[in-house]
């Protein structure tokens, strides 16, 4: 069963128990991103103070991959520095766009390494990247 390499237990756990879900105040920037091919969408806010990410809050709808990716993003980014978190975003993007050929740096990615299997499904890569691209956009706007 190929699917099991995509739907890792960790992904399903995050999907069923999303971390940090819900839009919160205060925030410095809010963005809304849409995946037009499937209608998945996310509204995401960031609160940044002196280079530190104090909160990433979000609300959205979509498949398990897109929802779990947002939950993992929240856990990884909140409490880290903007610089560190953007490094994780870059590594995650590299992994997702690697068509399953890229060896992920687990030290950088942490739990996000569970999405490695998604990279083999071109149609689903956008699902995984939706919230992460929204985060990158929000951080840029908050500066």
């Amino acid at each position: 069963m190929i699917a099991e390499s995509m739907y890792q237990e960790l992904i399903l756990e995050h999907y069923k128990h999303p971390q940090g879900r819900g839009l919160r105040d205060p925030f410095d920037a809010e963005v809304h991103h849409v995946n037009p091919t499937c209608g998945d969408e996310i509204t995401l806010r960031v609160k940044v103070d002196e280079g530190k990410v104090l909160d990433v809050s979000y609300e959205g709808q979509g498949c398990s991959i897109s929802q779990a990716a947002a939950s993992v993003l929240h856990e990884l980014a909140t409490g880290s520095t903007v610089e560190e978190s953007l490094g994780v975003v870059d590594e995650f993007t590299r992994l997702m766009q690697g068509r399953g050929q890229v060896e992920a740096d687990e030290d950088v990615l942490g739990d996000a390494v569970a999405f490695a299997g998604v990279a083999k499904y071109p149609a689903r890569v956008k699902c995984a990247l939706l919230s992460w691209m929204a985060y990158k956009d929000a951080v840029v706007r908050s500066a």
Partner: protein
Amino acid sequence: MFDVDLIRKDFPVLSRELPGGRSLVYLDSGNSSQKPNQVIDTMRDHLAHHYSNVGRAHHTLGAESTAAYEDARDAVAAFVKAPSRDEIVFTKNASEALNLVAYAFGNPIATDARFKVGPGDEIVISEMEHHSNIVPWQLLAQRTGATLRWFTVTDEGRLDLDGLDDLVNERTKIVSIVHQSNVLGTVNSVSPILARAREVGALMMLDASQSVPHMPVDVTELGVDFVAFTGHKMVGPSGIGVLWGRRELLDAMPPFLGGGEMIEAVWMDRSTYAPVPHKFEAGTPPIVEAIGLGAAANYLTGIGMADVKAHEKALTGYALDALGEIPGLKVIGPRTNIARGGTISFTLKNLSGDDIHPHDVGQILDDAFGIAVRVGHHCARPLHLRFGIPATTRASLYLYNTTDEIDALARGLHHVQKVFG
């Protein structure tokens, strides 16, 4: 005698193995159908032994290619009972056929009053249309200042005809609706709408992309003015579609695309045009695709469209029963097996009552069971908005599908509910 096991042997892809040793359960024919050997061999044979340009090549191969291309037109004309072969226009797909007609309206070249459109005139479509029967009419409305109006859809997934007399009125120039919905499976009743269109002098077009492949369609019997359909959904190749239109209307319409073979004579400042259908077939057409479509029409005729319809009706009843037993599954479209085809779209919840996204449903069905369905809005976003859902999972059946495959789908859906439980 309709024998699904024999039919399946005609389609080589149905016996292939997917990676990981899964067998294929193809329930996505509404998206695009698979091809039988009869079509594949005809196209291969033409490419290998007879291929040349059509119409304009005056040598042996040109004559053979032209004959095969025009034979295909005869086959398609016979398939939909067109009164004249000249009423069959080859296009690249159903979308082009719909656009061809939409662009005839409001075109300053058109002298016939029936095609004159301006502010105050109305165009009528429905909420259950594929984007290809929405956007061309939106564009027409934008070009001309005409008003776009539409039939709404009932909760059961039928056209709401309550406001018919108001919706289709003296201002209506054309009514263009789908014959069989690509999402709901609903087969629309044409006659009451057509009767009203005739009463007010409006033209009527049918998007028959999902009906011509699945039931006997007789364009004369339908009585409408234009019918669009496509090759790849009726066991033919992609890249070839068909516009059927009444000869008298096709003659009155301006050309759509200009180019080679659609002309009679050309001067530097003006041209006269070839008679229909060639007036609408500018440039080298999809020759081998048209020939493949002719083979597809002959293949389906050989099996018998009444039998194809009966097989799919039985299968649809079986599928509605099987899916109806899955808790948390909601069919979007008619639940009764009356005036509906074998296209079944649905939403699915897990046993705790949470929605499972169609992308997740489709992924598990494919990866774990080799079941191919379509997920998303199926190019009918307004219809999904009407039902307040972003997407559905759609199983669409055809002549080669079996009750075993429906059983596999039902088992697969139970498994999906466990994974996302």
